[in-house]
């Protein structure tokens, strides 16, 4: 189980995370929602130390990080082995083929045998129907295809949690549907996920838990049903704001 406590982060004078505490249950999908600029991305990136919080703690099984102290490379690596991020703009490596995008980390970081890494990559590609592009370069694929590849790339390192930052917001509706279906399937298979999204339908369909972040603070933290039953005024306001758009 991944747990954070009182995470704070400022950029210059601007306090972006003002003491966030949350639990992300294993085998479940937690969806993070909130207005833009509220700190969702910063929070998600903190879980992989792409952003280093100023203070607060993170617990992940035996790993305990106290961000008020310097984090060692070993601890950093341990956390990153357990989590893997999928980005809004997928960020595939343009200098590597699709296959090598997926096998690079298993081979060079985790020292998996090349053949085994490639077999695994082909299997992942087959599952998303893109195996025929194994030897193509990212630029030859559409955004939706690249995002599917980037999810394969994240899965290939067998992380305990996949972190997704608005994975569909740069895509056309059709590609978005495809990615969300893929994620729903992963959720059903019990893959632990933490996803920032504006897609409330996905939250309704696939989330187990919702975290509403506003202005660097947690406004709601609870089960999906409680969230959508609009028990709190803030949740109500947030959902109304979204449906107005």
């Amino acid at each position, binding site marked *: 189980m991944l747990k954070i406590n009182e995470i704070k982060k400022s950029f210059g004078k601007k306090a972006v995370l003002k003491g966030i505490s949350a639990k992300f249950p294993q085998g479940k999908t937690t969806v993070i929602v909130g207005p833009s600029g509220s700190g969702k991305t910063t929070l998600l*990136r903190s879980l*992989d130390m*792409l952003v280093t919080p100023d203070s607060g703690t993170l617990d992940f099984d035996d790993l305990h990080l106290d961000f008020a102290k*310097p984090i060692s*490379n070993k601890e950093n*690596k341990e956390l*990153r*082995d357990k*989590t*893997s*991020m999928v*980005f809004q*703009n997928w*960020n*595939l*490596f*343009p*200098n*590597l*083929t699709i296959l090598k995008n997926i096998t*690079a*980390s298993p081979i*060079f*970081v*985790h020292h998996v045998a090349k053949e085994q890494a490639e077999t695994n990559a082909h299997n992942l590609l087959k599952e998303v129907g893109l195996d025929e592009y194994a030897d193509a*370069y*990212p*630029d*030859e694929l559409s955004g939706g295809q690249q995002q599917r590849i980037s999810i394969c*790339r*994240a899965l290939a*390192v067998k992380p305990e949690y996949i*972190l997704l930052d608005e994975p569909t917001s740069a895509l056309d509706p059709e590609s978005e549907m495809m990615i969300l279906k893929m994620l729903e399937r992963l959720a059903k298979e019990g893959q632990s996920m933490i996803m920032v999204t504006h897609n409330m339908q996905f939250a309704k369909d696939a989330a187990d838990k919702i975290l509403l972040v506003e202005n660097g603070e947690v406004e709601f933290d609870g089960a999906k049903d409680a969230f959508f039953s609009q028990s709190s005024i803030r949740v109500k306001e947030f959902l109304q704001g979204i449906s107005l758009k």
Partner: protein
Amino acid sequence: MWDIVISALPKLLEAMVKYTIPLTLLSFTFGIIIAVIVALIKFLNPKVSGIVSILWKLLRLLASFYVWVFRSTPLLVQLFIIFFGLPAIGVKLPAFTAAVIGFSLNTGAYASETIRSALLSVNKDQWDAAYTLGFSTPKTLWKIIMPQAFRIVLPPLSNEFIGLVKDTSLASTITIAEMFQIIQQYAAQNYEPLLMYVEVAALYAMLCTILSVLQRYLEKKSSRYMKGDKN
């Protein structure tokens, strides 16, 4: 007329093989090694503290000073200082060694800036993508950032390489019998300066043209992954 041109040719080609080409290749190799090191010192910002961070800052200052010195002074003057100047403080170098040192340091200074800006121009998101997959900083540099920077850096570095071929003619001023010095000797003997200097110019042009062709081939190869020119 052709007799004169042809009579100078064997000595010229010998000078090319013995001096111009080795001088260029050695200086460029050392120059690039220096350039990559200097570029990385200026590019990287490691999370270190205490004495290491002070040392790192000092190293950066030193790197910047080096680049500034060699880019703000003429190459010819640099060569003179190394070959004719340094003996005054007891550093006496063979002419060829002095030339290689001068050309390497000069190339290193210019190329380091080229390489640094290429490293900077690789999308920052690539670092995030590599880090989240567990890559360390050296592995990210080596597997992800440098290959992408290489594509960007290839055309300007090729130009610097071609520039270096031509600059080796300056080695004649510190007693090296490379192509230009040989042809000066011929011109002084046969009173055909126009013919002689055009001949040596043609040889330089030939060398540079071969390099340009090589450059285009490499560029094509390294841009393989970009849409449109996959062949």
